[in-house]
């Protein structure tokens, strides 16, 4: 049989071996593509702002004498305890900046594949649906962990370094676990949320609007319903408020609203379940057009 060698094409003579983690290449590519977008680096840099502000607060708390004037007016802010970490990690700015970064990095994850009919290319390789979803979710997870878990665990380390002893960790041994728990919650939620919306359209611009819009519309809706029904249960319609409730429960702090935290966890789990169902339906190698 003639061997086709024109234009440099040649069959691979070696043996083919399956990669151990086939989804990892999807993750690496997704992260690399995010960094190529103009403005993304600025958004990512801005996302570390809360961590730097908190770092400043940690430093000041260990040097109270030097910052007497500042301390007098802001004593409450400089009390370094789990509530300090909860304040930043479950604050509105944290969610806002996460949404901005994930709009850059995550909006096109599935939408672009749907637009360019690239799913067939993925599944023509030894890659399962699970690998595909895991690879895409990992891109979101990378950025969430980079902006939440990683800096905040480092901040605990800085606190210990500034204090020069382990007293803080002895006083609050479960704090690192709370931070990891909050990171896991945000990773799971935002991974599901972003992929759910990305899979719902082929237009990345529309997905970006949805990511922002649905998140903030839920707050508006919740506010309207609270105005009508005057019941705290209406916060369950608000995604940011559910995240705050769940976060407060993880930090063992006071819940922002008079609603059991379990309900908020249930709402967030519902979003994850919906995402799984939509992805199972949308991510397939063959598309039927009627």
């Amino acid at each position, binding site marked *: 049989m003639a061997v086709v060698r024109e234009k440099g094409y040649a069959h691979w003579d070696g043996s083919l071996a399956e990669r151990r983690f086939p989804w990892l290449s999807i993750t690496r590519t997704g992260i690399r593509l995010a960094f190529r977008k103009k403005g993304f680096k600025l958004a990512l840099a801005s996302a570390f702002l809360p961590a730097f502000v908190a770092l400043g607060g940690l430093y000041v708390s260990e040097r109270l004498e030097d910052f007497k004037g500042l301390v007098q007016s802001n004593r409450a802010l400089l009390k370094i305890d789990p509530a300090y970490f909860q304040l930043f990690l479950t604050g509105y700015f944290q969610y806002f900046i996460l949404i901005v970064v994930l709009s850059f990095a995550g909006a096109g994850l599935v939408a672009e594949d749907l637009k360019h009919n690239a799913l067939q290319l993925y599944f023509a390789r030894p890659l399962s649906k699970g690998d595909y979803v895991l690879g895409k979710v990992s891109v979101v997870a990378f950025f969430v962990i980079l902006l939440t878990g990683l800096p905040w665990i480092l901040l605990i380390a800085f606190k210990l370094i500034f204090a020069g002893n382990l007293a803080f960790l002895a006083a609050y041994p479960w704090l690192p676990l709370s931070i990891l728990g909050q990171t896991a919650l945000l990773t799971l939620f935002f991974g599901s949320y972003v992929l759910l919306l990305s899979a719902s359209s082929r237009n990345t611009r529309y997905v970006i609007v949805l990511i922002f819009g649905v998140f903030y519309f839920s707050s508006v809706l919740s506010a309207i*319903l609270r105005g*009508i029904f005057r019941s705290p249960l209406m916060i369950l319609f608000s995604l940011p408020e559910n995240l705050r409730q769940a976060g407060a429960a993880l930090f063992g702090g006071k819940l922002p609203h008079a609603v059991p935290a379990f309900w908020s966890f249930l709402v967030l789990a519902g979003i994850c379940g919906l995402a799984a169902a939509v992805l199972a339906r949308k991510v397939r190698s063959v598309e039927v057009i009627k």
Partner: protein
Amino acid sequence: MTVRSAAREVFGFFFVLGRRTGRTRTFALLGLIPVALAVVARVFLRGRSGDMAAVSTEILMVFFLQFYIIILALFYGTSIAAEEVENRTLVYLITRPVPKPAIVLGKFAAYTALMGGMTALGLAASFFILNAARVGDPALWAAFFRYLGVLVLGILAYTAFFAFLGTVLKRAIILGLVFGFGWETAIQYFPGSTQRFSIVHYLKSLLPYRPGSGGGRGVALLLFRLEPTAPLLAVLALVGITAAFLALTCVLFRAKEHLSED
């Protein structure tokens, strides 16, 4: 073809096209959520007409003014140029005897008509469901048309601004979101004339109530630290913003080459 006649044809083409897309249906449904809320409010606030009036005039306007028209204008405004470039369909328009400004003007008209329709429908239905008892009152109709006018002016101004952003920048939508939900909200905390560097200031200046007029939390939210501009000036400012950004968009769109990323 003159710019006017070409714009008319572009309007016709994109008005029909715009109506058909799934996104328009989604946005239209979003605009009907206040209607559902109005029905819910009527059922649960039966007999409390003061509360219902408060819900309609304040809370719904928060939804429409500070969320819905911004989202609509952001998507459709940036779509005027960006959509054609992303979808690589601009070539079909540029290789026709259609002046480039006519493409901008025609699409602007088509999309603002769609947005106006969706907004009017949602607002009218929810407003009159909540104020059903006063349907015969001319003052109520005057208030309704004033609200509608504010929202329409807002749609025009925001869409023109976002159309300009979409022509100038590749990732206009994110900057637009930061502007619409960041700047427009944060500006109210700035003193003096700083507020006048926003579109929402002029829209709020046209609302049919003033700071301190009472009415509940919604009003307070909308008019927080508002130092209103006189209504006529506010209208002129909004018309001016619309005309200026639309003109800039036309000039830039005509002068610029539009290359798709691939």
